[in-house]
């Protein structure tokens, strides 16, 4: 298979000025003053992505994922190293960054198209589709400065996805617009996947990666720490989340660990509709008050349920603790499901301990419904 993106030994350094002398006078008067130091944002990153792959790039703020993305898109030049790109690339970096507020939507579509490398004729050919997708309608001839922020983003997204790119780079932009438009964007991305385009998704939203990507690259402080299957990638990502919190907040969360998840019967097989009980063993170095969270995922990566992180307080004591989970009835259909459990802090913001795929539940179902859950509708003709 052909590689669409080949990243070879990328380093990126930024010069950080501690005291900037930007005016000529200041530079002449204080030639030696103002220190600057080099900050290494990316360190020896190499990977390649084959045509048709959807790859998630995960990393926390400051991990270098945006820098990497900008280098791939050609916005930033690497300090050393090389990136080879095959085919056309459209980036959804900051939607609408190329818009000229004084111009109308129509003129901006052409301008933005040209920025993405399209000829006027090519934009003209897809113009109606763009307007359709964006739902801007008759406002297309209104100056963009009068648009609402939603309209702005919709128009930019519409241009980017309609230019028929071979490689689509998406940076957290799916967090914008209303729910319905977000779903539409997601649909379009899934369609791109089916059409065998390469998609690079940069985010810190693990759920999005789980849903869309089969492969994940995890960055931490400028270094590539993981490149492989998404399930493992998410685990690595969470571990680094703990690591970085340990060093920054220095809170009591050290050494909270989920040691095991067991059931009284010793098996995780269950019949659909029956209840289940789990015992979760947690070891903690100190006494700690937090909340318990559980998640259930389908094998396709969809989140089926996540418990509320604010309503299940647990008081951990030093040593070993056991938390019981009771599920009265599990109305899931035939299939294999993954259980994730974790401990979060009192305000439900920071994950203190997490166990991905702590258990795998196999549900047997005798009924005839299809999908994920049984809702047993009673259907009568009136």
């Amino acid at each position, binding site marked *: 298979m052909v590689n669409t993106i080949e990243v070879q030994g990328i380093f990126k350094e930024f010069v950080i000025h501690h005291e900037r002398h930007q005016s000529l006078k200041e530079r002449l008067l204080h030639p030696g003053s103002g220190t600057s130091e080099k900050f290494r944002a990316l360190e020896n990153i190499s990977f390649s992505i084959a045509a048709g792959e959807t790859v998630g790039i995960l990393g926390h703020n400051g991990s270098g994922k945006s820098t990497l993305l900008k280098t791939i898109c050609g916005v930033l030049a690497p300090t050393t*190293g090389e990136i080879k790109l095959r085919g056309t690339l459209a980036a959804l970096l900051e939607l609408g*960054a190329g818009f000229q507020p004084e111009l109308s939507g129509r*003129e901006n579509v052409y301008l933005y198209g040209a920025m993405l490398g399209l000829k006027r004729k090519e934009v003209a050919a897809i113009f109606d589709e763009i307007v359709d997708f964006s739902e801007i309608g008759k406002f297309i001839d209104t100056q963009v400065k009068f648009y609402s922020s939603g309209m702005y983003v919709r128009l930019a997204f519409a241009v980017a996805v309609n230019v028929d790119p071979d490689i689509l780079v998406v940076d957290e932009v799916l967090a914008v617009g209303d729910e319905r438009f977000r779903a539409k964007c997601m649909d379009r991305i899934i369609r791109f996947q089916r059409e065998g385009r390469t998609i690079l998704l940069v985010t810190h939203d693990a759920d999005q990666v789980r849903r869309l990507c089969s492969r994940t690259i995890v960055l931490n402080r400028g270094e590539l720490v993981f490149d492989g299957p998404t399930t493992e990638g998410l685990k690595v990502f969470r571990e680094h989340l703990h690591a970085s919190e340990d060093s920054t907040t220095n809170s009591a969360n050290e050494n909270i660990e989920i040691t095991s998840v067991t059931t009284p019967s010793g098996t995780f097989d269950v019949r659909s509709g029956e209840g289940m009980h789990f015992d979760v063993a947690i070891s903690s170095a100190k006494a700690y008050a937090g909340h318990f969270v559980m998640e259930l995922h389908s094998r396709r990566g969809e989140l089926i349920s996540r418990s509320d992180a604010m309503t299940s307080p647990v008081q951990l004591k030093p040593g070993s603790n056991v938390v019981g989970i009771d599920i009265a009835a599990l109305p899931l259909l035939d299939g294999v499901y993954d259980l994730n459990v974790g401990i979060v802090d009192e305000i439900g913001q920071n994950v203190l301990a997490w166990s991905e795929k702590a258990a795998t539940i196999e549900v047997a179902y005798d009924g005839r419904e299809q999908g994920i859950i049984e809702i047993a509708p009673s259907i009568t003709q009136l």
Partner: protein
Amino acid sequence: MSELASAIQRRDLSDAPVRTVSARPSLRGRLANLWGRRELLGQLVVSDIRVKYKGSALGLFWSMLAPAMNLGIYYLVFSVFLKNGVPNFVIYLFSGLIVWNMFFNSVIGSTTVVIARAGLVKKVSFPREILALSTVGATVVYFFVQLAVLTVFLVLLGHQPAWSYLPLLPVAFVTLYLLAAGVSVLMSGITVYMRDMAHLIEVLLQLTFWLTPVVYSYENTIAPALARHGLSWLYFVNPMTPIVMTFQRIFYGATNVLSTNTGQVLHVLPQWSLAHFWVVNLILLGIVGIFYLLVEYLFGRLEVNFESEL
């Protein structure tokens, strides 16, 4: 996930062109990239002009107001008040002013253009020199509008240009374009690092204006004094001088005229032959061409840190 992963590969990319993002692209690579994005340049020029005159009824005509004012004032001062005695002085003045206006507006407009479009520079990939080049592109449009007005002047005054010198026009224009583009691109990059370069440039441009024979005649004023000390070459170090003189030679036509004051012969332009003008223009084109390549190289070094400076 599994069903998506097994999706049929629709696209055959084995023949698709490969682009390389590297630490320091070669000069050839930079120029090829620039040429590949000429469509964007064209659209930016159009949008620049549109934005400038959005919501103004007279549109492009406003761009003529400032040059017309300058022309009128200089004519009044030098021809009417100071009585320089040059017949049809307005043609001489105008043919130099259109050259100066293009250079001046390009450089002034470009110095802050990268800073002004910082949002774009930090988010979208395109050759950064296109920002300055689009400003230059817009001034080229105004240049041709002014050239059309100059033609109208020639017809109204019944003034004959030097027809045999007319083929010099495209060469001189390309030289002017490359010079304006080179200085503009360079300044747009330098200003990112030194913000008050914009003010310094304004002063330097003022100085250059008076060192260029636009509102006065070099031959008629300082030429004899400089020649006596063997310093004539100093005046021609300013690359705008030969360009302006070529335009004046073409449109004003005559080199010697009879003064309207005294009736005596006035030397307005250098007594160069057509061949001499060709040599001067071609050499200058070569120098300015190399200068532009040098600017492309320097700009490539400057743009690496735009991200952290903007």
